[in-house]
């Protein structure tokens, strides 16, 4: 037995597609064998007739009438079905989850999120380099989470990035914090003034979270990927990131962190860190630093210590950084001449200067190869111990007799290659009763002579004494300063001061290799983070939760992973 129930609604207009959908919904109800929901046009009535649904009750319906017909096997079910029409229409209107468009390609995602500076790549390794390359092609920085990226790919990606002033974090970079937003795996860490570059994912997390626990905060924590400090990669990313953090005004302290690095690269990076204008805390696991601190660089052995030192450095900013002002020096001026009366002070100065200068000659060298052939004649950078026997035969020790030093001072000052003269002024019982009264006029004269010759002569005097010494230390310092000398009271500080200056003069005019590449734009780090995520959806969700502007790419391997076609596509693209 079949039952047909009908309903006619006059003046109700629905789009035919809505009606077709309603009809399908009716068909899904229990006991419904067939249904028709149409406007009562002649054509539609003909269609109903073909399906044997055009019963008499609805034949009179006109083009503006909505016809609803339900055929069922059971009267109750048929009646129930037709009574649910409004409910079914309303259910459609209720909407539901509307999904935003998911980009299928990086190109489209870039158009959808033009502000994106970063592309997060977490696709399978063999496709990752291709995606990263595409991102660089769009002038985006890359967070390359994927591992199993070949060394050649890493080298070529980082080379391209450096040439464009872009960063490639990774491959195998698990974590980073950019402008307060965690990429990949990252802890929620307070914003602050400590910037970090790390070739160690868990290290980065551990140090950033300890900084947070200790009350400090992070500007940016940039990952480099575990291989960055290998000899082959030569810290390509770390160098860029260090330079960027050094320029970043919000970053007051920089932390460098790495798994055991290549010793050669590590030494080179420490050199670069010392050129930074900010305190740098270095924790290169397994790297044996010869001392705990060099200039602005402090070495830490553990993550905790790294965090502590970083916070301390932030809280106690170093005294004003040295103003080198290289422009004052004439073109040929580049050497240091040290004229010491104290033998061990001369030794220590040479030791400290090793951090700055490749070779310092001396009549009392730490290394025989750096012996001055003639103690009376300085060459290049020289530290002369005027208390050595050769100088004291038949005369008083220079601590008591300034004559020899003054003559040597005049001689060094005349040398157009001399830029800095370092000398010690040792006070105390037994020493000259008023050394400054003789040395200060000599210094003033030497500087004046240099100036007349178109040069600038820096004189640094180490005053070794106490305020209770008989010479009146304050007065000695005053006299020396008046003569234009810079006065230090620590041999270490004095040696480093001249070391930095001489090093800078030596490098003057020599273009560092990296300078040919544009620097990483600071907006990359300091604009509100906007990104494109290719790969793991959880990264997209995490970024969204952190309020970043992110577009996710529903990524699939190009050409469905067909390698032949992928190769052809790559060839076509390279021809562009």
């Amino acid at each position, binding site marked *: 037995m079949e039952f047909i129930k009908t309903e006619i609604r006059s003046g109700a207009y629905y789009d035919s*597609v809505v009606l077709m959908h309603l009809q399908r919904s009716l068909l899904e109800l229990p006991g419904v064998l067939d249904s028709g929901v149409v406007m009562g046009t002649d054509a539609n009535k003909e269609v109903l007739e073909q399906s044997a649904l055009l019963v008499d009750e609805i034949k009179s319906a006109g083009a503006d009438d909505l016809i609803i017909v339900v055929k069922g096997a059971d009267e109750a079910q048929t009646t129930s079905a037709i009574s649910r029409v409004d409910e079914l229409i309303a259910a*459609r209107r209720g909407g539901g989850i509307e999904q*935003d468009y998911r980009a299928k*390609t990086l190109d489209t995602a870039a158009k959808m999120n033009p502000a994106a500076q970063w592309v997060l790549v977490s696709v399978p390794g063999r496709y990752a380099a291709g995606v990263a390359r595409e991102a660089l092609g769009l002038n985006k920085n890359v967070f390359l989470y994927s591992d199993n990226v070949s060394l050649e790919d890493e080298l070529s990606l980082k080379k391209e990035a450096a040439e464009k002033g872009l960063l490639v974090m990774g491959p195998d970079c698990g974590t980073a914090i950019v402008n307060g937003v965690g990429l990949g795996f990252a802890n929620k860490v307070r914003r602050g003034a400590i910037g970090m570059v790390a070739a160690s994912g868990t290290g980065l997390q551990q140090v950033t979270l300890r900084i947070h626990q200790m009350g400090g905060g992070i500007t940016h924590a940039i990952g480099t990927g575990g291989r960055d400090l290998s000899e082959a990669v030569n810290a390509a990313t770390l160098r860029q990131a260090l330079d960027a953090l050094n320029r970043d005004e919000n970053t007051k302290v920089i932390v460098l962190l790495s798994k055991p690095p290549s010793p050669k690269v590590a030494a080179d990076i420490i050199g670069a860190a010392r050129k930074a204008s900010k305190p740098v805390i270095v924790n290169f696991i397994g790297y044996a630093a010869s001392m705990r601190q060099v200039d602005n660089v402090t070495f830490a052995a553990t993550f905790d210590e790294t965090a502590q030192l970083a916070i301390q450095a932030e809280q106690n900013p170093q005294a004003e950084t040295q103003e080198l002002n290289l422009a004052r020096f004439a073109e040929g001026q580049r050497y240091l001449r040290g004229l010491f009366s104290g033998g061990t002070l001369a030794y220590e100065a040479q030791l400290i200067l090793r951090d700055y200068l490749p070779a310092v000659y001396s009549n009392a060298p730490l290394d025989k190869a750096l012996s001055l052939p003639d103690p009376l004649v300085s060459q290049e950078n020289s530290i002369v111990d005027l208390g050595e026997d050769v100088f004291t035969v038949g005369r008083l020790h220079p601590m008591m007799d300034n004559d020899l030093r003054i003559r040597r001072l005049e001689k060094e000052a005349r040398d157009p290659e001399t830029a800095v003269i370092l000398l010690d002024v040792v006070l105390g019982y037994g020493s000259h009763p008023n050394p400054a009264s003789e040395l200060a006029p000599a210094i003033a004269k030497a500087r004046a002579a240099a100036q007349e010759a178109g040069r600038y002569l820096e004189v640094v005097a180490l005053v070794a004494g106490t305020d209770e010494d008989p010479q009146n230390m304050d007065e000695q310092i005053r006299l020396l300063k008046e003569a234009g000398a810079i006065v230090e009271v620590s041999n270490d500080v004095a040696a480093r001061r001249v070391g930095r200056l001489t090093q800078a003069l030596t490098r003057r005019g020599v273009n560092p290799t990296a300078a040919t590449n544009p620097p990483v734009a600071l907006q990359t780090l300091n604009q509100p983070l906007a990104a494109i995520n290719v790969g793991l959806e959880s990264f997209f969700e995490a970024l969204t939760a952190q309020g970043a502007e992110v577009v996710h790419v529903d990524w699939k391997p190009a050409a469905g992973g067909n390698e032949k076609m992928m190769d052809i596509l790559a060839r076509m693209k390279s021809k562009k």
Partner: protein
Amino acid sequence: MDIEKANDTAIERMMESRPMLIGMGVARDVIPGMSDDLLMHAGPPITWARASGPMRGAITGALIYEGKAKDMAEAQALVESGKIKLEPCHHHHAVGPMAGVTSPSMWVYIVENKTHGNRTFSNVNEGYGKVLRYGAYSEDVQERLHWLNDTMAPVLAKAIELSGGLDMRALIAEALHMGDEGHNRNKAGSFMYTAKLAPYVAQAAPNSELAAQIIKSLGDNALSVLNPVMAACKAMAETAHDIEGSTIVSVMARNGTDFGMRVSGLGDRWFTAPVATPQGLYFPGFSEADASGDIGDSTITETAGIGGFAMATAPAIVTFVSGKPKDAINATLEMYEITHGEHKYFTVPPLDFRGTPTGIDIRKVVETGITPRVNTGIAHKDAGVGQIGAGLVRPPFEMFQEAFMAYAEKYGFA
């Protein structure tokens, strides 16, 4: 050779085309290469043996209309003996919806591209239900065909001439802003078309009774403008063909058995693969089991940057794919992934008037695995029944891979 430049040229030519509906004529008089022993059909070349039900029905109906056969057996004999030849509409600058069968005596629209001078053609739309283009060929179908061709067309032809021609690009652009996408939904376009021609029909008709019938016929049929729209799309798309090095698709068409495609830089070769069955909604009493394979030249709309590609302009029909209005937006957004550019004149209001995705690039299809979205009517698989639903279909991916490899070989990328 620069692929990007070649594609720029291809879509620039397509977009700058200005197709005008300038008149109508009898196929044998106006279509180049049309002859009395020829039937044109939709899609790539087909034989009787491989033809689908609706295609066979439409061929039969056309031969009955021409007075050459009485039934399907006679039609089959004529075609199989070679006395009647079958050729794709696309070989004659023509397009036809669904089976697309156009016979020598039928009237066709004439569209002229004012920019490039090429002329294209399409037959007259019969409306919904049991119609020739869906393979129905019964007596009432014949009657309607005769009225459309013998009675309406001569008047309509005169009316179009009196109107001075209709700018189809402008009409399509406006219809897109009124909820049409130009393929499955042509309601607004058909109203505009009717409104623009009605005064001239009134002038051209021998009596007011016939004028009223014609105007009513055009106005009642929400697809009356489909055929001129398709001819206009053909006029635009064919100017993008034969650009050396271009990877842009210049033809997509289906004959119910095969999906066929031509690529600008690959000459007149058809790339084909078996058609899929559309997914969609069905009229009462029908289901997917009754559906014919995908059929018709109407994919020329997607080729030219409208139809499924302009889905975002027609949210009312997104339910064809049982979706939400946002799915309409997403459908269009997806097509930007595989197209070379954005249309200058066809724009999408909900996407901030962004141009429709225009110029399918076979490289992008192969790279992304995304095939074009096609909105389509669904024919019954048996001859003589007609339309049973409407929905969405995508061309077979293999066809794009084959064309891609052919391109790579021709241009030395393989």
